[in-house]
């Protein structure tokens, strides 16, 4: 029986001694989608991905990946998944082609189609010029393309990517995402962890993790419309003083400076948020343009990761 979901996890937890890296995680990742995993460093993203591919045994809970229970049946799962580690894990002392050949052999890729598949990947991932270069001597972006090429060589149904873009420049990131969309269109389910908001925004669906707990999930749009916060944008000539005026004011949940603008989060339970901000600014003699706006993913992130007492401030 084939599930509609590529990944289903219930109450997945991993404790390292006293450290609860992941607690009680429920996940439903539909097939053929790009599913984002957003969270700061140490929020449990890598641990979760490692549990899902059977590298770590969950302390509690269960996970079914491509209709296979992990870590129990991880062996059966391996040929169907591709995994790109956070750190470059290919062989630096072998050339690009040699690395691809090795991966093809390890996955017992059909011998007659091997050479054609490798040339196809070299072309698709723009590595033709580097084909004979030692992998260890390439740039961050080239290494990342090689790692992606290796992880998709055997046509996996599910691709798990652990912070794939943390070591590359913005142009490489854009190209990388173009590749991911192409793979998703061809039917591959992709789970990608990141701490970049702009990347999270490109995902079909995402989960936000904070200290090992899933604090929100849904499509980016759903998340943006359900923050439970008013978003007020304040444009001031003197943002520093404006921030001082607002920082510890009544009802203000958070203030974030973006250039000359401030984004102010106020709980939805407050009926007239604009008046709250204007009064606070006025009482400190700060002149500013104040208007309400729609939530960005960054606002969502700030809202869902803040402690409850600040939320209700």
């Amino acid at each position, binding site marked *: 029986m084939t599930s509609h979901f590529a990944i289903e996890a219930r109450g997945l937890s991993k404790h390292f001694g006293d450290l609860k890296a992941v607690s009680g995680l429920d996940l439903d990742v539909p097939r053929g989608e790009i599913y984002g995993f957003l969270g700061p460093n140490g929020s449990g993203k890598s641990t979760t991905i490692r549990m899902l591919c059977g590298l770590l045994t969950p302390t509690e809970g269960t996970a079914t990946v491509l209709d296979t229970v992990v870590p129990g049946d991880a062996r059966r799962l391996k040929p169907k998944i591709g995994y790109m580690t956070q750190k470059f894990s290919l062989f630096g002392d072998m050339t690009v082609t040699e690395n691809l050949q090795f991966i093809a*052999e390890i996955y017992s890729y059909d011998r007659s189609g091997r050479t054609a598949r490798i040339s196809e990947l070299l072309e698709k991932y723009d590595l033709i010029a580097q084909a004979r270069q030692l992998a260890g001597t390439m740039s961050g972006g080239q290494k990342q393309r090689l790692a992606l090429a290796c992880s998709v060589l055997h046509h996996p149904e599910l691709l798990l990517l652990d912070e794939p873009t943390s070591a590359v420049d913005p142009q490489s990131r854009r190209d990388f995402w173009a590749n991911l969309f192409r793979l998703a269109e061809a039917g591959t389910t992709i789970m990608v962890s990141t701490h970049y908001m702009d990347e999270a925004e490109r995902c079909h669906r995402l989960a936000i993790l904070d200290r090992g707990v899933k604090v929100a999930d849904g499509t980016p749009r759903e998340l943006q419309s359900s923050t439970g916060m008013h978003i007020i944008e304040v444009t001031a000539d003197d943002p520093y003083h404006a921030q001082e005026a607002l920082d510890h004011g009544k009802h203000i949940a958070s203030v974030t400076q973006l250039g000359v603008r401030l984004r102010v989060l106020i709980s939805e339970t407050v009926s007239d948020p604009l008046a709250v901000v204007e009064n606070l600014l006025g009482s400190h003699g700060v002149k500013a343009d104040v208007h309400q706006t729609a939530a960005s993913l960054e606002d969502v992130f700030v809202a869902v990761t803040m402690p409850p007492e600040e939320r209700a401030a």
Partner: protein
Amino acid sequence: MKSHSRLLAITKKEVRQLRRDRLTFGMIVGIPVIQMLLFGFAINMDVRNLRTAVADQANTHLSREFITKLRETQVVDIVEYVDTPSELNERLRIGAVSVGVVIPADFDRRVIDPARPAIHLLVDGSDPTIANIAIQLRNMPIAFDTGARQTRVNNIEVRPNYNPERRTPVNVIPGLMGIILTLTMMMFTAVAIVRERERGNLELLINTPVSSAELMIGKVIPYIVIGMIQLALILFVGDALFQVPMRGSVVDLYLASGAFIAANLALGLVISTVARTQFQAMQMTFFVLMPSILLSGFVFPFDGMPRFAQYLGEILPVTHFIRLTRGIMLRDAALAELYPELIALGIFTVIAMTMAALRFTKRLD
């Protein structure tokens, strides 16, 4: 069939990486050759030319004759003459000489009196080899062509079988073979696997369909070949430079070496499952190497060691291998006659392999 090709893929990759790693490649040839040159030429256990000082308080015709005979043995090299025994002690203490000979003033009378020692030997006991040799000097016959009665000394003639000329390299090189293979086999395997862990390659590999057994065996195969190459190299250098005999069968020696290499690779695998860094792997290799040199019978005679040390020595694969190599190369023993050593190596390999397989899982936790 599929598994077969995955194993081959790992081996192929390992060889490819090894070829590019000049340092390791150099060590494969360099370690055996350099160690053989060092040990073969430098270790000399038949002691000659011990620096000696003499205090001849008699200074008679007889005492001078005795000194001449002493010099003729070539065991001692008389470098100075002093007046009193206390001066001899002084020379010994500062290390200027290793042996002091005191000839008492009444030497002539003592020679014919069996109840009293004619000569006093002062020996630097801080070096065990020198002490042993000097004790043998005690048995030197003191025969004089004077009218005095012949002194009868029962000196035992020792005929060293298998190494009649008492050349040290003949004894050292079969043992050194074991030490070199222990060092290189254990270190190369342990480091090769730990390096992949350190570089993150292992996280990629364990996410592929490759199994633990394929991974381990595939990585180890090239090192078995390297071990055999090193063995050939040692035999060649041993024969060419030190004329170490090869009295038994070469096939037997290679079979014995195969068992020994397997034991060391298994131990290397165990180390690789414990060590987190290459540096730790090296340290653990040396932790095994030191007792392998000292407790295996390579340096000190096994029978002379305390019981406890002998038990420890029996655990080490190299102890059994040295018995095999000395047996095959020097005594022309057949492998079948030395079967207890082979069984010991087999048991060691099985235990170590089981430990490694149990510890090495395809998981990170």
